[in-house]
């Protein structure tokens, strides 16, 4: 639902970084998106195509690396992936759990010419 403003950020960051690198065209933008982050890749690509018009990012492809949710048990430190919506440790059954991966949302790199 909030991908429009986020995509504006992506275009701004990409164009600024490409300018710094004295590139004339952005071919691909590599983004890392956590499964828990609540951003929808298809939706970002849709807005990107219109927001990047007439910039050096026009026509660039967005590649999303999805980071699966990874949890850590506060009780026994077991690292695991959730199997359902109820987070409980597969080793000790504790439900005291912290999120160790899955909230990422950053631009990793770009391919430019």
């Amino acid at each position, binding site marked *: *639902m*909030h991908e*429009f*403003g*986020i995509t*504006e*950020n*992506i275009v*701004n*960051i*990409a164009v600024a*970084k*490409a300018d710094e*690198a004295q*590139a004339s065209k952005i*071919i691909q933008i590599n*983004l890392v998106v956590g499964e*828990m*982050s*609540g*951003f929808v890749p298809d939706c970002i690509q849709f807005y990107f195509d219109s927001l990047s018009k007439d910039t050096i990012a026009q026509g660039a492809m967005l590649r999303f690396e999805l980071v699966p949710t990874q949890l850590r048990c*506060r009780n026994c430190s077991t690292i695991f992936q959730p199997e359902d*919506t*109820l*987070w409980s440790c597969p080793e000790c059954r*504790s*439900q*005291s*759990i*912290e*999120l160790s991966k899955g*909230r990422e*949302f*950053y*631009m*990793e*790199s*770009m*391919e*430019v*010419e």
Partner: protein
Amino acid sequence: MKKIEVIQNILEANETIARRNQQLLYEHKVFAINIMSSPGAGKTSLIQQTLTRLKNRLNIAVIEGDVASTVDAEKVQSDAKAVIQINTRNMPESCSLMAAMIESALMDIPLDDIDLLLIENVGNLICPSEFTLGEHKRAVISSLPEGDDKPIKYPLIFIDADAVIINKMDLLPYVDFDIAAFRHSVAGLNPEAEIFELSCKTDEGIERWCSWILAQVKNNATRQ
């Protein structure tokens, strides 16, 4: 074709403005709470109750975030020192308040005369958890008719909460809401969250919530 390393947080733009907001609030000794919940859980009612109880002890400003209308701003108008209504309908994002919206609202609030800023976010359990506003504390309300499974379905907003409020406690005899199960889920995600059981309709539990706010405001003032 060449590859360039970037490594930049996409949300950085919002976070930079949020830090600026927090600095401004700090300079004016204003303590801010971001209040989040699904629509109808009782954000406005909780703000009204808080104003009634605390208006003689603190100068309170309210920022109301809604997709449309000034309904909520009108409800809190009489007891607040300042009320700003933000309508997100015409903004790039309508599902959550963002730091830039708060930054412009703060320009219309006489910050030197304010001790406490209550920010009512747009009713939504997903988007507001991604956008920090510059607040000092985050409060999430769940109400009994919504069911006790919200922390399981929307963990992020509960992971980041400083206070979790169970509202509409007066409905407990009529709905299937397992308070112990809810508390257990919240404690699992976020052992540090303070949990409040209250009813904005009957007043039950409001006093403890207001004492918590007073303690937070005092702590914040002595830290400066």
